[in-house]
């Protein structure tokens, strides 16, 4: 996302902050640019958090609407990305709760592609990335919510422990232990679904 800005190289975080500051002053074009920068990432994260493709658009739009309505209160104590991600997580959790009754994502047996990846055969699985995508989404829905959140932030968004601590409002040490437990749960689920059938 980084690009030259007035001849000076700004980091992604600086560009985000600059766009948000402009948006705070009423520049709607800047806010739209900020939405464009995060659109793909947030659609992907929402997909794995709520587990229903039909709900993804709602979650992402609700997130940006909440950001737009509350951006006046942003004081840059954390990065813009951290702040946006925290709002996305809350929206996804609300959506997950309200849709629980009609939730249908159930994990059956893992696809051949996913099992090949877990057995160290990466090449065979890359051609069937969509199968892997659906497997991962379904397995993530079987995790405890706090484990699903932290796995999505670390493994899918690639956040550092410090960023995760800020988004989830946790001490840094707790991030490490929770991530360990989350990975153990994920490993158990993957093994269970991989062995089914």
């Amino acid at each position: 996302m980084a690009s030259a800005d007035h001849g000076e190289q700004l980091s992604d975080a600086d560009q985000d902050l600059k766009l948000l500051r402009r948006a705070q002053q009423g520049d709607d074009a800047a806010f739209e640019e900020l939405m464009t920068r995060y659109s793909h990432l947030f659609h992907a994260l929402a997909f794995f958090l709520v587990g229903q493709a039909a709900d993804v658009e709602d979650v992402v739009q609700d997130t940006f609407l909440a950001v737009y309505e509350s951006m006046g209160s942003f004081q840059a104590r954390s990065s813009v990305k951290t702040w946006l991600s925290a709002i996305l997580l809350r929206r996804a959790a609300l959506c997950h709760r309200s849709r629980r009754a009609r939730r249908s994502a159930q994990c059956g047996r893992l696809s051949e592609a996913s099992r090949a990846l877990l057995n160290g055969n990466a090449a065979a699985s890359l051609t069937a990335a969509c199968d892997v995508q659906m497997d991962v989404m379904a397995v993530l829905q079987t995790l405890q919510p706090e484990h699903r959140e932290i796995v999505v932030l670390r493994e899918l968004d690639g956040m550092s422990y410090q960023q995760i601590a800020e988004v989830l409002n946790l001490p840094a040490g707790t991030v490490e232990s929770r991530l360990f437990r989350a990975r153990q749960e994920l490993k158990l689920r993957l093994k269970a679904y991989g062995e089914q059938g």
Partner: protein
Amino acid sequence: MECPQRERLGTLLDGELAAADRAACEEHVLGCVECTLELEYLKQMSLLLSVAMQATRRAHHPPVTFTDLKQRKLLRWSKGLALAASFLFAVSGFLLLAEGGRAPSSADVAWEQAAVLPQVAMVQMESVDPVAQKLLGMRP
């Protein structure tokens, strides 16, 4: 008995261990079969998640626009209005039912009777025989 170093393998993989801890952990893994296998599985699991994420990010999502946000806000408002209307309907229905079942107060009864009395007197007057009315001076 699980190796106590297992808990640190994810942190090692994430590159979040301090330099000294990382060196010690890496040295341990070299001599521990259980941790070697565990670290390998964590890497494969990480690759699985990464493939899934890349596939999802490649999918086309039209960027969210201000028009989307305005429509979303309108939808929220209409949902709120519908909820408020249902609430008002329920409350007014409840009040009407409560009103219908309430015993009339004595003041109400007196007021209603007072309104009916002249009509009763008129009916009674009309039912008296016209001859008698004449005799009684009720008619000219």
